[in-house]
């Protein structure tokens, strides 16, 4: 029997798990996928929004502003890369009023360090912008973070403090039984818990419905992205938004914490909660709209394109409520990543007020070793490590310079990587210019070795995503 079960191991569920694992309660995190961070968390804009977008008085505004304030500390504790690179909302002359309205909304939301820029100041800050842009809002608290890195670190830290992670657990039903809930998975497994947190992203309406709450629905909003080579990583220093529309914050151009350039997202409402395919229309829109903001985007430097589904709730705001021991975190679309620490803080407060949490664990550890510590070390420090463990002297991913030692660590550290994409998200092996062409056979070998499974059982991302079908003729 768990005290609290969290459904959905995205960045919201992960941050909630971390907040609750501080206490003497038994916490589990359930997810239908084979790894954490597999939904919108692995495919979003990777931005810590300053908080000027959301309507005054909304939950989005409240959690965003607070989350943005908390993010620097949270990422430091978790050893996650974070960069306050600032953001700009840019506009053409006919959009000046809108830019000024966003400035006012930001002030009303309590966002600090906002500044309106004229044309000259704007282009002096960012020389690669479209020269026709004439006005901008500069948000000095705007920042970038890697969302899946944050989620993995949060879940890892929660696990280090005793939380349990249950993967490939697709919730099929939730039944109330003598003051607790029985959560049944599609494969028949059962988990019993006293309290429940629903952080199931695009499925948060379905999970809510299983607990008898049919008050809201969630529409997946497709967002396509393109990631460009590190050669383009300093194309802009700040995150460049265009003045927003009602479908979202428009298409942004932003450097990432890992040094790439990101374009996206498009915004199309769809039916299918699993359809993360990219479209030719999406590619065209991305280039077209991104060019409104920056000039001469090096389109031939696209490393990969991907698509995420934002969980757009039917109320227009986040749906955050507690009823009958179930905390619902529904419709957490943008600015969900920025809000995640604040939402977690709020959930912690809910359970504290209900008297569920009790004392903080004596051996609670708030921090986690940075996943990327090795590459930050000096030559001398690296050589000390290599002399103890030769695996750190063997580079597996030549594009990103990732060693066997780092990959093995990712396969042994909470939450352990179990497949090729899991290693990729934890180490960046396979994320560089050759996109895994050279390193993937070696990584497959390391996964097989560390997990003690046959080579051909290693998958790309769990379930049926097999990479090899068995031996060749001569090796049978």
């Amino acid at each position, binding site marked *: 029997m768990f005290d609290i079960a969290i459904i959905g191991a995205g960045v919201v569920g992960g941050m909630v798990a971390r907040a609750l694992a501080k206490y003497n309660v038994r916490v589990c995190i359930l997810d239908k996928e084979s790894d954490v961070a597999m939904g919108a968390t692995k495919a979003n804009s990777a931005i810590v929004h300053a908080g000027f977008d959301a309507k005054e008085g909304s939950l989005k505004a409240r959690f965003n502003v607070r989350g943005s304030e908390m993010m620097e500390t949270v990422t430091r504790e978790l050893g996650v890369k974070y960069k306050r690179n600032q953001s700009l909302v840019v506009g053409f002359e006919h959009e000046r009023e809108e830019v000024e309205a966003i400035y006012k909304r930001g002030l009303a939301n309590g966002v600090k360090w906002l500044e309106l820029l004229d044309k000259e100041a704007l282009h002096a800050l960012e020389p690669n912008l479209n020269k026709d842009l004439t006005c901008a809002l500069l948000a000095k608290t705007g920042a970038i973070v890697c969302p899946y890195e944050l989620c993995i670190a949060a879940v890892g830290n929660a696990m280090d403090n005793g939380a349990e992670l249950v993967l490939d657990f697709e919730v099929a039903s939730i039944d109330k039984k003598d003051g607790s809930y029985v959560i049944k998975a599609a494969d028949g497994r059962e988990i019993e818990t006293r309290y429940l947190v629903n952080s199931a992203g695009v499925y948060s309406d379905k999970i809510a419905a299983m607990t008898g709450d049919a008050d809201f629905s969630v529409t997946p909003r497709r967002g396509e992205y393109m*990631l460009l080579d590190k050669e383009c990583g300093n194309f802009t220093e700040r995150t460049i938004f265009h003045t927003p529309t009602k479908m979202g914050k428009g298409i942004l151009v932003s450097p990432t914490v890992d040094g790439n350039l990101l374009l996206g997202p498009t915004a199309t409402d769809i039916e299918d909660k*699993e359809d993360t395919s990219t479209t030719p229309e999406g590619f065209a829109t991305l280039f077209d709209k991104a060019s409104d903001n920056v000039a001469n985007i090096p389109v031939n430097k*696209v490393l990969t394109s991907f698509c995420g589904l934002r969980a757009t709730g039917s109320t227009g705001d986040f749906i955050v409520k507690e009823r009958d021991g179930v905390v619902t975190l529904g419709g957490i679309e943008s600015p969900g990543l920025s809000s995640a620490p604040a939402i977690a803080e709020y959930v912690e407060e809910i359970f504290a007020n209900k008297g569920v949490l009790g004392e903080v664990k004596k051996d609670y550890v708030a921090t986690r070793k940075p996943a990327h510590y090795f590459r930050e070390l000096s*030559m001398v420090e690296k050589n000390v490590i290599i002399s103890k463990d030769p*695996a750190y*002297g063997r580079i597996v991913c030549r594009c990103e310079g990732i060693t066997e030692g780092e990959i093995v660590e990712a396969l042994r550290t909470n939450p352990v990587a179990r497949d090729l994409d899991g290693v990729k998200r934890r180490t960046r092996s396979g994320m560089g210019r050759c996109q895994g062409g050279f390193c993937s*056979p070696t990584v497959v070998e390391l996964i097989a070795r560390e997990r003690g499974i046959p080579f051909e059982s290693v998958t790309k991302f769990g379930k049926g995503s097999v990479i090899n079908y068995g031996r060749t003729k001569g090796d049978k």
Partner: protein
Amino acid sequence: MCIKADLVIIGGGPAGMSAAVAAYDAGIRDIIILERDKSLGGILRQCIHNGFGLHRFKEELTGPEYAYRYEEQVRERNIPFKLNTMVLDITPNKIVTAMNSEDGLFNIQAKAIILAMGCRERPKGALNIAGTRPAGIFTAGTAQKFVNMDGYMPGKKVVILGSGDIGLIMARRMTLEGAEVKAVCELMPYSGGLARNIEQCLNDFGIPLMLSHTVVEIHGKERVTGVTIAKVDERRRPIPETRQYIECDTLLLSVGLLPENELTKSAGISLDRITGGAVVDQNRQTQIEGVYACGNVLHVHDLVDYVSEESEIAGKAAAAYIIGKSAAGTSIGLTTDGKVRYTVPQRITAKEDVTVYFRVADVYRDVKIVVRDGDNVIISKKKQKVAPGEMETVTLTRQMIEGMSGDTLSFSIEA
């Protein structure tokens, strides 16, 4: 630690080994080859098909056999090499930073450096293929590694996009291993691979080569379940009415090779926009004196025989540089008309015989390769057919270079 060496060779594939042997034979002893893989040979190790060495050795060798001929020469001369060693950085003043398990991270101050890092395959990203992102999408070379080195089958029903040589070779290889290769789609109206590979790898096995076709959508959530292909118009845009679905579990990509020049750039050497490799003179010397480049890191070759030939030039020149010899100087730039896409070398700095390698932009029939010094035609060579997949050469004699009135040689394809 910072050790010193006369000549550091980065890469122990066919280019690095040929260069090492040539430099040794020209009198250099203090050589070190740094190779990232666990043995010498480079990509040839996984190219177990034959067809290598026809020009060099007048016989048909497999890739590993060809590589071994050079490895033997390296071993006979006791030329030192470090395996499992990754070079991480080169500075403009020739300090090479590398790492391996035994020595850790270390620096070598070199008198001369030969860049022989080879190339990599163009990945799917820049193609912007719509659809899902399941398992089962590989570059042809990655699939070749799984099959030939690891002994595993990455697919059963295969579609190949791109008709580069590795794609063609893998079409045959996968077929021999029992897979069904349903089609090879090529965006261009001609193949980028060697004519002999189209014959021996596709036609002999009845695998259709669909020219002017591309993959427009990938299907399947966990593993590839199929691809949608379409014919493209003359501007290479897919024609919607021609879309057709092909059921398959694997998509292999053979859509181009890119010289791997990250280290070259870290040394501050500028690259040729067309080749993706350094700009070099007839000695394969880059803009930094004493730094040379050869093999696929300089420009992508169709035959390894030419890689060896080019690398010997670089090895000999590096030796001469270390010893302090130099030939009588000149300064000639080589230009192209667009039909000739590029030349290697791009400039000539000495009055001696120079073989110029180049590739053309399209398939041209019954044409002449023309080299001019100003308006003066100095070479005119008839060709029945030239194609982008096959490298061309012309040789400029010392007399031609000495007799030049201008300082530019222009290369063109003419009717």
